[in-house]
């Protein structure tokens, strides 16, 4: 068969709702035979951080940032109506009610479908997120040039 069509998604946001939208499109794109790359940057890094353990970063500011901005798939909140976690808790319930996959399940599906998960090296540097803060499903830490290299070959590119 001819070379696969490519699709890329920049995951900038760490909001639960936006993350779900990104994963829905990534898994659908892969199902449609596309080679999908997801590039997690800035707040989006929170989606692919491990849920367990602390984040070891250097310097007071970065230590504080990683305490406040701990991240992890199970800590994501809604972009609207979070209401101290109540809204997010309710939305997770509604999603479970209609058998929608969780973020963790979407990440597992992505790996089964060969979706590439990449972390942005600059964001990691600025925010002091070490590579061992990410879950094992993350394939590599790369820069903007690598992302654009993929995006310029892609038929579909999204910024979420």
């Amino acid at each position, binding site marked *: 068969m001819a070379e696969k069509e490519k699709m890329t998604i920049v995951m900038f946001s760490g909001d639960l709702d936006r993350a779900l939208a990104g994963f*829905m499109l990534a898994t*659908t794109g*892969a*199902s*449609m*035979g596309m080679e999908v790359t997801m590039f997690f940057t800035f707040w989006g890094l929170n989606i692919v951080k491990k849920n367990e353990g602390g984040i070891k970063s250097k310097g007071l500011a970065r230590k504080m940032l990683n305490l406040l901005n701990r991240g992890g798939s199970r800590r994501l909140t809604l972009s609207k109506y979070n209401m101290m976690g109540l809204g997010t808790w309710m939305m997770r319930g509604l999603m479970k009610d209609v058998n929608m*996959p969780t973020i963790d399940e979407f990440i597992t*599906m992505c790996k089964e479908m060969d979706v590439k998960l990449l972390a942005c090296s600059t964001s990691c540097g600025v925010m002091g997120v070490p590579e061992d803060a990410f879950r094992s499903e993350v394939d590599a830490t790369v820069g903007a040039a690598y992302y654009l290299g993929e995006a310029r070959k892609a038929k579909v590119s999204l910024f979420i």
Partner: protein
Amino acid sequence: MKADQSLDCMGLYCPMPIVKTAQKIKELKTGQVLEVVADDIGIKADMPAWTEATGHEFLGAEEAGGEIKVYVKKTHD
């Protein structure tokens, strides 16, 4: 419509019926027909888009009650 295999997607929303169809079609032989049973109305537009992208053949949809059945013929490996 007669199908060789059936996939139950009742109670599942986008993107799961399409994701499951993409997995299930691998189990069929070329020329066989897959029936997908779903209740998310999105599937009526999504399945033809999926077959167009993947090169398989969309044979049509049947609707009865809240149940939508769509048929896909596998045209290649």
